[in-house]
């Protein structure tokens, strides 16, 4: 999976939420998407997921443009929003079964149960998702995307609701995912965690890409940019 973004832009009313955004990602890259509130991170993820039509610009997956009608391409993109995109009145197991069938993936009971076991939700398999806590919903989302196995996985602030073991679970999943040649883009305010995982960091500020470098240690350029665009009191 190779992702190419050219001159992507999105305007809301009289404001650019994102502008002049170029990016090329190769297989297996883990990208940390950083920036203060309102920098355009969520907008970028929504655009990449094809949920919002761009005002201008092109997104290509393996050289094929992503448009509203590109069904096969859409199946290659996943968006992990922590406690969303699940049906409250379906059980955890039914949610997984529904989505795997929709994506035409393995929806056998054994595969689903294995996925639930991995995220520690075996005991809650028959509970309605509406009755699960936010952290459990997030774990279920992890299981969901593990099963759907998208070539490009986008994450929007996944750390907020997870406990310690949940975070380990997520990070292991993401590492494995990249190791198999898939791309991960994670937007987060947990700069330290994101930096530890990533191969490359992007900083968005006021809708512009201000910083884009591969990870180095030490990394004075990032420290400098970090001071300019992000609040000093990071976690």
């Amino acid at each position, binding site marked *: 999976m190779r992702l190419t973004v050219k001159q992507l832009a999105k*305007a*809301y009313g*009289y*404001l*650019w939420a994102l502008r002049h955004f170029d990016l090329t990602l190769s297989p297996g890259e883990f990208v940390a998407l950083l920036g203060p509130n309102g920098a355009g991170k969520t907008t970028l993820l929504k655009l990449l997921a094809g949920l919002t*039509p761009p*005002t201008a610009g092109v997104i290509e997956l393996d050289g094929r443009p992503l448009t509203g009608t590109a069904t096969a391409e859409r199946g290659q993109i996943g968006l992990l929003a922590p406690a969303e995109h699940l049906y409250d009145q379906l059980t955890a197991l039914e949610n997984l079964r529904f989505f795997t069938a929709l994506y035409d993936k393995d929806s056998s009971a054994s595969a689903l149960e294995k996925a639930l076991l991995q995220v520690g939700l075996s005991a809650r398999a028959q509970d309605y998702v509406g009755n699960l806590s936010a952290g459990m919903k997030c774990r279920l989302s992890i299981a969901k995307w593990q099963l759907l196995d998208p070539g490009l996985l986008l994450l929007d602030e996944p750390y907020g609701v997870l406990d310690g073991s949940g975070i380990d679970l997520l990070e292991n999943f993401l590492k494995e995912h990249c190791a198999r040649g898939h791309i991960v883009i994670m937007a987060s305010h947990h700069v330290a965690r994101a930096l530890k995982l990533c191969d490359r960091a992007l900083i968005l500020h006021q809708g512009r890409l201000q910083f884009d470098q591969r990870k180095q240690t030490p990394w004075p350029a990032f420290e400098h940019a970090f001071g300019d665009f992000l609040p000093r009191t990071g976690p």
Partner: protein
Amino acid sequence: MGRSTKTVKRRKGILGGLALVAVVAGLCWSLLVAPPDAYQGEVQRIMYLHLPSILTAYLSYFLVFIGSGMYLWKRDNKDDLLAHAAAELGVLFTALTIIEGSIWGKPTWGVWWTWDARLTLTAILLLIYAGYLMLRSSIDDEQRAASAAAILGILGFLDIPLIHMSVYWWRTLHQPPSILRPDKAPWENVHPAMLTALAISFVGFLLLYFYLLSLRYRVGEMRQEIKALRLERGV
């Protein structure tokens, strides 16, 4: 830029002038030159307004349909502007058609309103395209509003023949169309001066229509330019 806007403006001025001349000529012919109708008397002069206005309304709906289809296909904002402008004028001319029909109906049928097929059909068209304008104005995101309206523009136009058929079967007491009666050539039915008046009136309405349409279209275009300029400077 300056020169081209000037030529555009001059062209609009010429179109407007021509429209004015044609409309005044149409008024002279239909009110002064054309003889009164043998059966209906002077009241029949309303026809010189009625026929051209309903035909311009239908022309509008056709343009809405074309603009909507082109917009969904090519995603060019100009097509959407055309559809929007045409819909607004369509509503205006349909409303005028209904008012004229009603005024014509009072002396001929003795009532302001009768549920005759053609009047009813026109009223339904007014409702559909008024709904189109309301739908547009109640969706905030411009691209989404344009797509939603385009869908309605297409559905509405394709529905017209079906509505036409059903309303006619339901009931009809309108006089049969006298100009396009198939068994006789038009000039055998009607006094030639009447036909001339109708033709001039027609040309007047069409010129006026395209003049107003170009003005309305330009307003939309300028609003988009304003928006683009504001965006450019982040105001």
